[in-house]
């Protein structure tokens, strides 16, 4: 099993690609198949986009720190920011059965995060830092 890895970037959308490359490499090292790698990439991308847009209220207002921790049966990604605390209960999550033309972008990112990951935990802000823990389990052993 590979070791824990950390990446810190400034909260700009242009850094989403760097974040995607980082978690993609970590997911592959954790023995995930390409469907699982894509799921991790997408959930993390949506979470970091939400941090820049909502927690920081725009680009260039704070940093995002990601930690990838291989687990015996998958991968845990923890995302840290110092923006406004996020309460997922206050955001309506998209209903995929609602009329498609009425979709709002807000709830769609959160919907993907919940659908693609096996565990999603928004941890209360402490010492000015928010933490989001995402866990994806491997379907098969490497």
């Amino acid at each position, binding site marked *: 099993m590979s070791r824990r890895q950390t990446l810190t970037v400034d909260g*700009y*959308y*242009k*850094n*989403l*690609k760097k974040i*995607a490359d980082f978690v993609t490499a970590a997911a592959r090292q954790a023995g995930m198949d390409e469907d699982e790698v*894509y799921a991790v*990439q*997408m959930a993390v*991308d*949506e979470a970091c*986009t939400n941090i*820049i*847009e909502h927690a920081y209220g725009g680009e260039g207002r704070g940093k995002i720190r990601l930690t990838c921790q291989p687990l015996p049966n998958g991968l845990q990604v923890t995302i840290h920011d110092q923006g406004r605390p996020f309460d997922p209960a206050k955001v309506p999550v*998209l209903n*995929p*059965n*609602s009329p*498609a*033309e009425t*979709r709002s*972008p807000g709830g*769609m*990112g959160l*919907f*993907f995060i919940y*659908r693609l990951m096996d565990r999603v935990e928004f941890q209360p802000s402490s010492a000015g830092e928010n933490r989001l823990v995402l866990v994806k389990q491997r379907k098969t052993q490497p």
Partner: protein
Amino acid sequence: MEVTHKQLRRCDLVTVSGRIDAATVKQLSDVLSEIKNAGRYNIVLNMKNVTYISSAGLSELIDTQNTCKQLNRGELVLAEVPDRIMDVLKLAGLTSLFKIFTTETEAVGYF
């Protein structure tokens, strides 16, 4: 991400490749807006070489479709959608919003 645009006789063909995320979606949005602002609403989006799309990209497709379909003046259709991107459209329940063609020729021929 790269976006190219070609005006055809009965529709506009837009070809996009690479990642469509919150950083790159504006490039696509600008091209689609230019077409709509010129009063043309029949659009084919070839997604053959799209490697990733996030909710930011999906929102742009929904907005464009809603604008094109207003007053029955046109439609956005998708062509050559990779399996991975199709999975995302299905997961979000969006496949009913777009006609999806296997080839670009079929999509252009629809108009």
